[in-house]
């Protein structure tokens, strides 16, 4: 692999606040396969580019670093296969998987039927799908490439939440927090299993963004984990600073 070749990042939740920011700030650093369901990231891609409304011209420099967008509802059968196949067909490899897709549903525990429905949905999107996607990449690409994985420092970053580490007594976030706690645990277990073929796994657990901390700080933390050597760690991001657990 020639030096200076951009790393390939498969990013889910690309249309969300964090995903959009990641694309905006780091499209120059990564070749990004950006997966979104219905709200695309507003950055240049094969389907959209930036224009100046006053002159009508393309802003050439701003359109230089394009993402490769993939529209997909990952809850649908066959979609994870399709997303991974498209990414590999486009870029030939995956160096970084960022599981950024997630849902938040506030439902009180005593509202039993709704709670169970919301809990099931959040477990699926926030815990099961990230695992399913990582396993799919591992089976299709990483499992038989230990030396290259180590050389390329390949890894997974799961976007969790501080709600998966701390029980908040305000709001009705029990289902959300539990789904993120499951994601934290899965991240550590995945790190243990993926070590066999040289792929690191970590998670970020930020507090509320952009209300309490800038979204860019969370996006930069993902890049920091990608560049590091740690595995099986959860990086907690608070107003007061970052720390690993």
């Amino acid at each position, binding site marked *: 692999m020639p030096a200076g070749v951009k790393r390939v990042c498969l990013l889910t939740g690309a249309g969300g606040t964090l995903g959009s920011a990641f694309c905006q700030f780091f499209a120059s650093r990564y070749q990004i396969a950006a997966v979104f369901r219905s709200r695309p990231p507003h950055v240049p891609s094969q389907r959209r580019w930036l224009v100046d409304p*006053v002159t009508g011209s393309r*802003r050439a420099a701003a359109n230089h670093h394009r993402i490769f967008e993939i529209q997909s509802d990952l809850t649908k059968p066959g979609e994870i296969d399709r997303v991974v196949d498209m990414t590999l067909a486009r870029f030939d490899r995956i160096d970084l998987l960022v599981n950024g897709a997630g849902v938040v549903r506030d439902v009180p525990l005593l509202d039993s039927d709704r709670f169970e429905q919301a809990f099931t949905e959040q477990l699926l999107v926030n815990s099961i799908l990230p695992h399913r996607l990582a396993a799919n990449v591992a089976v299709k690409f990483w499992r038989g490439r230990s030396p290259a994985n180590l050389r390329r420092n390949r890894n997974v970053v799961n976007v969790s939440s501080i709600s998966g580490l701390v029980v908040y007594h305000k709001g009705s976030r029990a289902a959300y927090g539990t789904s993120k706690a499951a994601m934290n645990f899965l991240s550590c277990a995945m790190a243990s299993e993926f070590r066999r073929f040289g792929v690191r796994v970590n998670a970020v657990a930020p507090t509320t963004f952009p209300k309490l901390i800038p979204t860019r700080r969370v996006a930069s933390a993902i890049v920091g984990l990608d560049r590091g050597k740690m595995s099986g760690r959860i990086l907690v991001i608070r107003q007061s600073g970052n720390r690993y657990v």
Partner: protein
Amino acid sequence: MTTPRFDTLRPASVLANRRWVKNVFPYTYYTASNVFTPRIYQMFESAFREHTNGRQQYMDKHDTYGVTLTRGVDGPLGFFASRGWYRMIARLVGIKATPHLNIGLHHHEPGSENGFVHNDLNPGWFVDYESDQGTVLAQPDLCSYTTGEATKAEIKPRRTIRAAALLFYVANPPWTPGDGGETGIYRQGSDDPERPLEAVPPINNSILLFECTPWSFHSFIQNRRTARNSLVMWWHREPAEVVRRWGADSIIDYR
């Protein structure tokens, strides 16, 4: 700080964002956020609230409340009827527009129904007049914009066809995913409004803009939690151009 004359403002002097996104699938449409400078946006928001206070009428076809900005509109919202804004958008979209503009202020109550998937390739009727700006606004007191029915026998309405549609989201509460109220973008007219290909959220000071063609399918998506407000405007073109490009049967009369 002095208040600017909005009808003579150059768009370049009030735009905070000149990096608009041109989307090319499933049809060409433009999106942009943080469009105007914060000061100008605040003036638009205040004027929107002032104009809509108790003046909007219920439109059952769209389950929305609306009021039309008409001839002589002044103050901040006069910017949207200005020559500079009219020309900039027409040039960006690439349409040969007649001077006619329809500008509406729309309000969806929380829990409004889904819209229906449609393309906006509809007629628009106007009564011509001379204006400093060179633009001509709809005048519902003289003729119906949608049917051309005149209020007096001597009025001779002119038929045009919508050429471009623009939504400017304004005076909305903060939006978060799950709130609804987006404008859905669709592949075809038979799509389910709840299942858009893409969805443009109603975030204040952002814009959705597209050329009206037989394929510009879009719809309002039910707003579950909060109200949705927007300034909506249409540019128009000669019917003959539409007939030449897409055929007479592509024009959908307002039912």
